[in-house]
């Protein structure tokens, strides 16, 4: 009852603020559109598996500048491929090489193919057929940079805008004295947090549905899996952003100070979420990724949108995201003790 009242009030406030609504929906679309036209590739060391490569051929190959692992059978190599331990593997059937690529990241595809071509060049004189046959586990040669980065960006924009809006409106609630007014009613602290989560959660769901629909159907972002899974992931992420935004706002005294948290809280998440290849990050920083919500959302989004995976492959990430939300909700209730002890 009280939570419902709070939820309705928040939704009403959002709807009244037409500019913010427009901002939340169109800004991500605009930026995604721009990025769609901008993207380009960079350097990478491919991980390649060798299956049953004949000894004479092997001795001819220059295997430097790639991580090589050898496999007894195609099955084990395929498994490594689907776990993303390999970018691709070479299989010899009747003296002919076949190439299998993991395929979800176009940069990696490109690098792996380039490496393979340079390696097989010396064989041209030995009579081995080097008309390479390529099979993709995910994706295709058609896939562009934007298709791979898209899911991460989609997650990022939802996270970013929900974080800011929730944080700022909670700060406003504090600075205008309405938070104190709320706390002078029998409203419980967890009811305040939950009311906020529901109010902004409903709006975040509408926003992310629109942005995701635009990305997929207008910008033609790759979408292999089910739209429904995408929504679940985005919703879980929005909840995390929401609860984190409210929590962080406790440490800010005004809107400007909230904005100052962006470089500390938001920007690092972008670096560690998989927008840049995580394996090129130095070891002493690689622990950062797994403690950021965006890391899990990006992984799950990519699994659904690029790899077409289903529930079985994303549920852990979703549980982790909801876990983050619960943790932040809990911390929020504690933080509200500052304003009322009971």
């Amino acid at each position: 009852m009280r939570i419902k009242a709070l939820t309705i009030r928040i939704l009403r406030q959002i709807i009244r603020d037409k500019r913010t609504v427009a901002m939340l929906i169109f800004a991500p679309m605009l930026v995604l559109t721009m990025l769609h036209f901008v993207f380009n590739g960079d350097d990478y060391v491919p991980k390649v598996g060798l299956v049953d490569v004949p000894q004479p051929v092997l001795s001819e190959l220059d295997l430097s500048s790639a991580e090589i692992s050898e496999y007894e059978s195609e099955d084990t190599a395929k498994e490594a491929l689907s776990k993303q331990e390999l970018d691709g593997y070479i299989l010899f059937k009747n003296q002919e090489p076949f190439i299998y690529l993991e395929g979800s990241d176009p940069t990696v595809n490109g690098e792996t193919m380039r490496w393979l071509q340079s390696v097989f060049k010396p064989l041209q004189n030995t009579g081995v057929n080097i008309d390479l046959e390529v099979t993709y586990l995910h994706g295709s040669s058609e896939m562009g940079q934007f298709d791979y980065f898209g899911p991460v960006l989609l997650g990022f924009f939802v996270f970013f805008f929900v974080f800011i809006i929730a944080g700022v409106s909670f700060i406003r609630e504090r600075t205008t004295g309405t938070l104190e007014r709320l706390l002078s009613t029998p409203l419980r602290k967890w009811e305040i947090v939950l009311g906020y989560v529901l109010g902004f959660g409903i709006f975040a769901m509408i926003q992310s549905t629109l942005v995701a629909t635009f990305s997929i159907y207008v910008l033609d972002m790759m979408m292999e899996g089910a739209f429904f899974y995408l929504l679940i992931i985005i919703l879980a992420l929005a909840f995390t952003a929401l609860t984190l935004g409210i929590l962080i706002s406790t440490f800010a005294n005004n809107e400007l100070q909230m904005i100052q948290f962006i470089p500390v809280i938001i920007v690092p998440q972008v670096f560690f979420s998989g927008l840049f290849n995580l394996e090129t990050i130095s070891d002493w920083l690689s622990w950062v990724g797994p403690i950021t919500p965006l890391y899990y959302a990006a992984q799950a989004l990519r699994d659904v949108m690029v790899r077409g995976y289903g529930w079985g492959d994303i549920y852990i990430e979703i549980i982790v995201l909801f876990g983050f939300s619960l943790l932040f909700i809990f911390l929020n209730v504690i933080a509200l003790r500052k304003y009322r002890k009971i």
Partner: protein
Amino acid sequence: MSNLTPCVSVQNVSKYFGKQQVLKEINLEILRGEIFGLLGPSGAGKTTLVKELSGLDQPTSGENYLFNEKMPSLELINRIGYMAQSDALYLELSAKENIEFFASLYGLKRNKQKQRIQEVMEMVNLAEHLDKLVGDYSGGMKRRLSLAIALLHDPEILILDEPTVGIDPLLRKSIWDSFYELNKKGTTIIITTHVMDEAEKCDRLGLMRDGSLIAVGTPNELKEKTNSDTIEKAFLVYGGVSDEN
């Protein structure tokens, strides 16, 4: 007017913000059905004291009791109406949406809600401005809306922190008329003010200065004891005494 049973009891209350002491060993009883004024300059600790009484803050040492139960408690909060110094309203929403929101927080049912909203809005003369956005309200209208919200759940104790600041004399009179009306129905009213002539309207007064309660009594008692003809002079005498200590 008052039937002499205390409904608020402040016992040895001190409050520190860091090292600064804002309330010093306050002892005070407020009687059921009276209009009690807390008078003092800004920074005297009035707001801190009424916040503790409304459950928003807790003393560092000592206890506050309402109806013989220790504050803060969510049960007691339901019996208090609190109006803060600043108008805590949502400017993007209409007056009706604001007041409906708070009515729901106090758990008023649909029918009762409608009826109460009409009653309190008429009491503060805002009934015809119910559908306006609060952002378009004047300062005085916002104050009155805040008051209406504090009255919604028909509280037994009404705690008002500087309710008439920035309000023109005519309006102030009409707001005080509604206080008297409520008081007649038995509502205990605790009011903070730094305006001396407003203090004269209270049944009893507590004079506060630098975190101490320096005197308590009816306006006439305070004046007689100090041989002053105004509350202001009485305040000066009590303040001077405390300075010598």
